């Protein structure tokens, strides 16, 4: 039965790497926590991600990348989201992201960055607490 508002999350893999184990484990954990997860698969361009976020009216965008292209792709995604009027959306990221990149990523509006070994429960809690 519908029970009012559901948290909707887009899980996307920008870049070309095919390592989707983390993205899928997170997607499943969020589903099991009662959220609706739009999973768009591998090799998403920033344009595709921003447009899917818009059409699906998601509350959260989760980005997973292991190829090392995050400093090129994440700023583009954040700008496109802003251009489309979705600056209020909560964005988090995971994958292989060196610590020294974290301040710059937070600066551009990515709220949380999860490295390997993050318990999925942490992500669930963070989203529940921070989605208005």
């Amino acid at each position, binding site marked *: *039965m*519908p*029970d*009012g*508002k*559901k948290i*909707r999350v887009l899980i996307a893999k920008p870049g070309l790497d095919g390592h989707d184990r983390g993205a899928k484990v997170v*997607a*499943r954990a*969020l*589903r*099991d*926590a*009662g*959220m*609706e*997860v*739009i*999973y*768009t*698969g591998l*090799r*998403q*361009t920033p*344009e*595709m991600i921003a*447009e*899917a976020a*818009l*059409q*699906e*009216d998601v509350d959260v965008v989760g980005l997973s990348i292991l190829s090392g292209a995050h400093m090129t792709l994440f700023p583009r995604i954040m700008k496109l989201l802003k251009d*489309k*009027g*979705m600056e209020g959306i909560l964005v988090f990221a995971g994958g292989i992201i060196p610590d020294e990149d974290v301040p710059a990523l937070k600066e551009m509006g990515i709220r949380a960055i999860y490295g390997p070994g993050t318990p999925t429960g942490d992500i669930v809690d963070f989203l529940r607490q921070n989605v208005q």
Partner: protein
Amino acid sequence: MEVATEERLNKEGRRAGPVLAKPRYITQNQSIGAKNSSQAIISPSLAESRELADRVLAGDRRGVARLISLIEDDSPEACPALALLYPHTGRAHVVGVTGAPGTGKSTLVGQLARESRQRGLTVGIVAVDPSSPFSGGAILGDRIRMQELTGDPGVFIRSMATRGSLGGLSYATGDAIKVLDAFGKDIIYVETVGVGQDEVEIAATAHTTIVVQAPGLGDDIQAIKAGILEIADILVVNKADQEGAERTVAALQLMLELNHQPQGWQPPIIKTVAVEGKGIEALSHEISRHRDYLQVSGRASLLRQHLAEEELWNIIRKTLVARIMDKLDRAELDQLIHDIADRRLDPHTAANKLIAQILE
């Protein structure tokens, strides 16, 4: 002009679809508003509804996305916005695509959308996936098959979870289609869940219903027997390059012959290989032909009446239930239930008593 036989009308009558008990768009707040003589009150939410409707009509994609969410979430703004959009609907051709998992529905819808775009039509897609009965969450993965379409401004794709509905669509699907219709989409493809035995609800929503089969799934004949043939305007055998495709076609042919209608629309069987784009043009042609048939035969206006009546009754039923629930004294209801369970009172008398009390 064809004269509809009784039997044929019954077949169209299939579009009635199952009755849903779920009171929709009636939230606590709204019911109270309704009690106070409803629509005249200008609430902040009505102003919001108006703004949302304007955004949809002005072609604002974000407005469309927002309104569909509000519909899904049973928000009070949804109903008035839909009311404002209603005069702008009825233009789009709605194509339902149903079939078992693994038949390639998403790929097929993606290809059909591409084909429609090549013909200069704008496209809406609603793809429904099941909610988990345990957590209420869902994984919606149909966009994977439609990736390239995401960049096309002439296409709007929305994924929906069933959120407890069992008929292959979600409760909000019909209204999401209306939003996309008012938004100006020429053709709207609706992809059902494709897991239930009972996916006939799509036929109560779409103008043209496509039933997809694929060879080698083992239970194809079973699915046909389960009555899915009854709702098909077009039958598709996808993955037609695989072993057993001819057998599936032959089985469908036989079922059609057994079910033969002397007059009216004869559902064609189209072979496709959706991943390679094969057979899509032919399928698209059949969709157009069915649309033309609905127009020329006068079936279209009949269908419209029928869908309108069904929808009206559905809403009346839901609204009534919601109002009754709202007015009922819980303690009184519990007492009645006890009485029925203990055989002191029969359920018919109890129901009549309750309704009479409320309708007074």
